[in-house]
């Protein structure tokens, strides 16, 4: 068996048409697993670490570093990829990751021709949402027969599929694998029903079958002398990048305003209780782990989005596709200009302290240019917070194909009537820009209502 698969230039945003391989993290002959970071791609916006969809051996690198190529171009050939182990090939998925405007999509080949001499193994087509759902449910898309247009695998196909039996791993083995850096996906379980036990992990570690954890790969791949924040392209490139990012934002925002009929809602929320609660909570936390009001606002927005699922998802092919979880896009302004909105995964279920930590991490990595591909494409709703700038209200532009954008302004002390008495209260203006194709004002109003109630009961967040 010598299956071949191509690792292609992924589409990492609605606005991305081409990218540059900034760095290869693998070389020919390396064994890689699905999910390993294999390359750093310089999009117009940032340096993104891109994961492989395949497990196998890197046969050759087709594009050297520094060359700018269109989305969909084959960058490397991976061999020995067992067909069952790779549900979806990136070429099938990437064009769907963020649907480009129709004319763009027509211009771009939907699927690349296979590498010369390679057997043509048709990979099922599925949207990222369907793929995400399949992963969550442990369904192998490659085994499904799509019932959608052109054999596309639909949500229903995944929902009706039998999930793959879940890997059984003893608690001890799981902990041991984490300590030894063994990837459980590659461990053969010898217990009942194929359960992986501690002994199996130890043997795998001795064989060296387990690749080092992704962090280790990153560390090894990174030139040691280079400080973490210094990844930005030096010198003259800086200017080019800034210009390119401006162009990318221009394309995405123009598309948004051209295609999306926005409607805007706004409400003012009294944060007296929220801020008092936050002070109380921070009292017991070390300085490094203190919560900022932004964490409360983001958590409330994520929870409200979870309760109003019509606002959490994508408008694709004239229909709304709900997100499987609330992956909260957080608009982060970059040093030197520009904007990026990577996702905080499953933000509605994160504990506040974890959300705060994840936010810090995300901002630091966004500014250092170390975001992951999934973070760039999976946001289901975005939040923009311009309070730092002193702005009181922001009426945002939706990032396509999402259907809503939540805005928070500055927290300001203002006279405010409570129970018939006028007092000075800390207020914040919460806004919602939503896609009128997907929802109506009533739904948006409900969202802001829930958001306000959650912020008034911070202990429930």
């Amino acid at each position, binding site marked *: 068996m010598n299956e071949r698969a191509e690792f292609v230039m992924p589409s990492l945003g609605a606005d991305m048409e081409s990218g540059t391989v900034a760095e290869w993290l693998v070389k020919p002959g390396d064994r890689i697993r699905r999910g390993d970071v294999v390359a750093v791609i310089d999009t117009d916006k940032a340096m993104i670490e891109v994961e492989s969809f395949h497990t196998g051996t890197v046969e050759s690198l087709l594009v050297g570093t520094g060359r700018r190529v269109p989305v969909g171009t084959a960058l490397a050939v991976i061999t020995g990829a067992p067909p069952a182990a790779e549900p979806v090939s990136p070429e099938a998925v990437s064009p769907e990751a963020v649907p480009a405007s129709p004319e763009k999509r027509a211009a771009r080949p939907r699927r690349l021709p296979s590498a010369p001499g390679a057997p043509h193994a048709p990979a099922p087509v599925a949207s990222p949402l369907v793929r995400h759902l399949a992963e969550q449910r442990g369904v192998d898309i490659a085994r499904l027969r799509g019932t959608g247009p052109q054999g596309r695998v639909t949500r229903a196909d995944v929902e009706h599929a039998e999930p793959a039996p879940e890997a059984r791993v*003893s*608690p*001890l083995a799981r902990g041991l694998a984490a300590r030894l850096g063994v990837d459980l996906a590659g461990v053969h379980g010898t*217990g*009942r029903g194929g*359960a992986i*036990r*501690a002994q199996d992990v130890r043997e795998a570690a001795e064989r060296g079958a387990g690749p080092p954890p992704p962090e280790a790969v990153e560390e090894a791949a990174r030139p040691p002398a280079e400080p973490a924040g210094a990844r930005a392209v030096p010198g003259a490139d800086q200017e080019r990048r800034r210009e390119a990012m401006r162009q990318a934002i221009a394309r995405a925002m123009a598309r948004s305003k051209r295609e999306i009929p926005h409607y805007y809602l706004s409400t003012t929320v009294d944060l007296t209780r929220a801020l008092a609660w936050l002070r109380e909570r921070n009292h017991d936390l070390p300085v490094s782990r203190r919560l900022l009001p932004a964490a409360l606002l983001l958590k409330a927005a994520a929870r409200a989005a979870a309760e109003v699922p019509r606002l959490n998802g994508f408008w694709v092919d004239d229909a709304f596709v709900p997100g499987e979880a609330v992956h909260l896009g957080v608009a982060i302004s970059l040093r030197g200009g520009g904007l990026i909105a990577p996702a905080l995964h499953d933000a509605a279920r994160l504990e506040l302290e974890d959300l705060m930590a994840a936010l810090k991490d995300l901002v630091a990595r966004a500014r250092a240019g170390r975001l992951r591909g999934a973070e760039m494409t999976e946001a289901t709703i975005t939040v923009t917070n311009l309070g730092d700038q002193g702005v009181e209200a922001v009426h945002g532009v939706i990032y396509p194909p999402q259907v809503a954008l939540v805005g928070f302004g500055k927290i300001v002390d203002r006279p405010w009537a409570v129970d018939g008495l006028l007092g000075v209260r800390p207020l914040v203006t919460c806004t919602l820009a939503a896609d009128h194709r997907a929802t109506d004002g009533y739904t948006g109003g409900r969202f802001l209502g829930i958001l306000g109630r959650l912020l008034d009961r911070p202990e429930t967040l």
Partner: protein
Amino acid sequence: MSAANTITYREAMREAIREALRRDDRVFLMGEDVGAYGGCFAVSLGLLEEFGPERVRDTPLSEAAFVGAGIGAALGGMRPIVEIMTVNFSLLALDQILNNAATLLHMSGGQLNVPLVIRMTTGAGRQLAAQHSHSLEGWYAHIPGLRILAPATVEDARGMLWPALEDPDPVLIFEHGSLYGVSGQPGPGQVDITSAALRRSGKDVTLIAYGGTTGKALAAADVLSAEGTEADVVDLRVLRPLDDATIMESVGRTHRAVIVDEGWRSGGLSAEIGIRIAEQAFYQLDAPIQRVCTAEVPIPYARHLEEAALPQVPSIVAAAREAVAS
């Protein structure tokens, strides 16, 4: 082991009572047929003759009455040892044990402690049928205010009574009926009544047992050893309060646990131990916890059915094999 310095579990128990009667004037023994008949299981044989009817007292056939009298005597400053024929009959005195002995200290705001020792036989294996054979010590282990002991060895039978009498609160001692004829070393005559004991060391699996199943677990460990599987055998000794530290220390080394309990499985002591392991040593487990318990039926009279209902060496071995294989 020379026969000269070994005695039976029954003799060890008798020796312990004799010692207590000699050491402390406040100690007396009472129960059904403990005097003239020498005890239903002959534990107190000869003690009436030695100590007289004031201190070795036959009682009427009413568990509620004589356990209640024991509680009253303890409150009055005595150190009674009350013998109940079997745990099944102790249910007639459950009101006295739970509502008075275990509770008075708390209800009196610490003013009234009950320094009472109750001994009783438990367990099956002797064809005494369902009304004399159950293992209900797990029920008593549920009750705050009691200390529950389960001597499994001759040394513990000899050594647990005195510290139990010194305990200012009620202590229940469960003597498995199948153990009375077992011989062993009595030891120095006193043991602790707080900890579990590691009866055998092995690295592959922990067998947790107590009382009548400890010997079966040790026999199972021998069988397993011949197969190359080395078992730790933990004898709980104290069923309340449980010695979590010893259990977790062992499971932390072997990563596998088999709990052997002659009680029923549902809602029993084995369930309590299992969940404690899950709570405290979850990340040490390399296999699902196994349990070997008595079949959920009233203990049958017919020998082959009774044997089939109880934990036995082969079923313990099978559970250990499963833990090691899964």
